[in-house]
């Protein structure tokens, strides 16, 4: 065997080994569960601030318009964003106190900065009207019209004592698995 033949054989062997290794990897990948990342957006709305809620709904409606499937999960203070009124009957003292202190509905939400006891929020609403920016109420309605999935966190709803009848219509009730179920398939996930 000449030196040249020897090197050729060596490189063929190296190639065969490489092919075998790649075949094993392809097989392993084929057996692994598919990573189904879809055109979805999953969002946690934790904040009950007017400005953050606006950002959340602008992103949600924009994404829905762009063709993404959108899910919004309202938890803790974020429940205030989808709250339409107050109910006190049958609640314990703590729940009544929470119910009274937490904002109910768009008009009672505050800004996260420069709120000045609600004056900032009122000014913001005026500026938005003047600039022809949709109000939060309109955005919520629009989001529902566009088929955005909205889920109220059952656990925080219970903690804060917020009843179904205090929340806007069209909300689902769910927990962390509902969020992760959607988030794990989403290209975009946000926490606001």
């Amino acid at each position, binding site marked *: 065997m000449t030196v040249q033949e020897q090197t050729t054989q060596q490189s063929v062997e190296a190639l065969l080994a490489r092919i075998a290794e790649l075949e094993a990897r392809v097989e392993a990948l084929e057996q692994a569960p598919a990573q189904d990342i879809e055109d979805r957006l999953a969002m946690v709305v934790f904040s009950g601030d007017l400005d953050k809620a606006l950002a959340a709904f602008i992103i949600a409606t924009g994404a829905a318009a762009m063709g993404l499937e959108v899910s919004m999960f309202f938890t803790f203070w974020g429940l205030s964003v989808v709250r339409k009124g107050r109910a006190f009957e049958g609640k314990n003292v703590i729940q009544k106190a929470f119910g009274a202190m937490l904002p109910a509905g768009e008009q009672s939400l505050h800004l996260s900065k420069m709120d000045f006891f609600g004056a900032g929020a009122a000014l913001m609403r005026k500026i938005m009207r003047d600039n022809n*920016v949709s109000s939060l109420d309109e955005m919520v309605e629009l989001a529902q019209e566009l088929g955005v999935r909205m889920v109220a966190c059952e656990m925080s709803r219970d903690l804060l004592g917020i009843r179904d009848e205090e929340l806007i219509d069209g909300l689902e009730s769910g927990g962390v698995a509902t969020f992760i179920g959607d988030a794990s398939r989403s290209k975009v996930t946000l926490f606001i």
Partner: protein
Amino acid sequence: MSETFDVTQELDVRGLNCPMPLVKSRKAVNALPVGGVLKVVATDRGSVKDFQAWAKTAKNIELVAQEETEQDGQTLYIHYLKRTS
């Protein structure tokens, strides 16, 4: 302006801000026949990049043309969207 395509429908979103131009256009595109072209007239400067991003993301939309014109001291951003499927 040389138009090499027929505008099927026109949508006026002048004065509207993010995300309304997008939302209204989506609704209008959904109502278009396949192959139809929607002309969107907007005053929102952000809509230029927004429509480019939308066309890139969406599977059934093609941004055929974009142009800017001045009218009554106002800049108009005009987008032509084609529904491809």
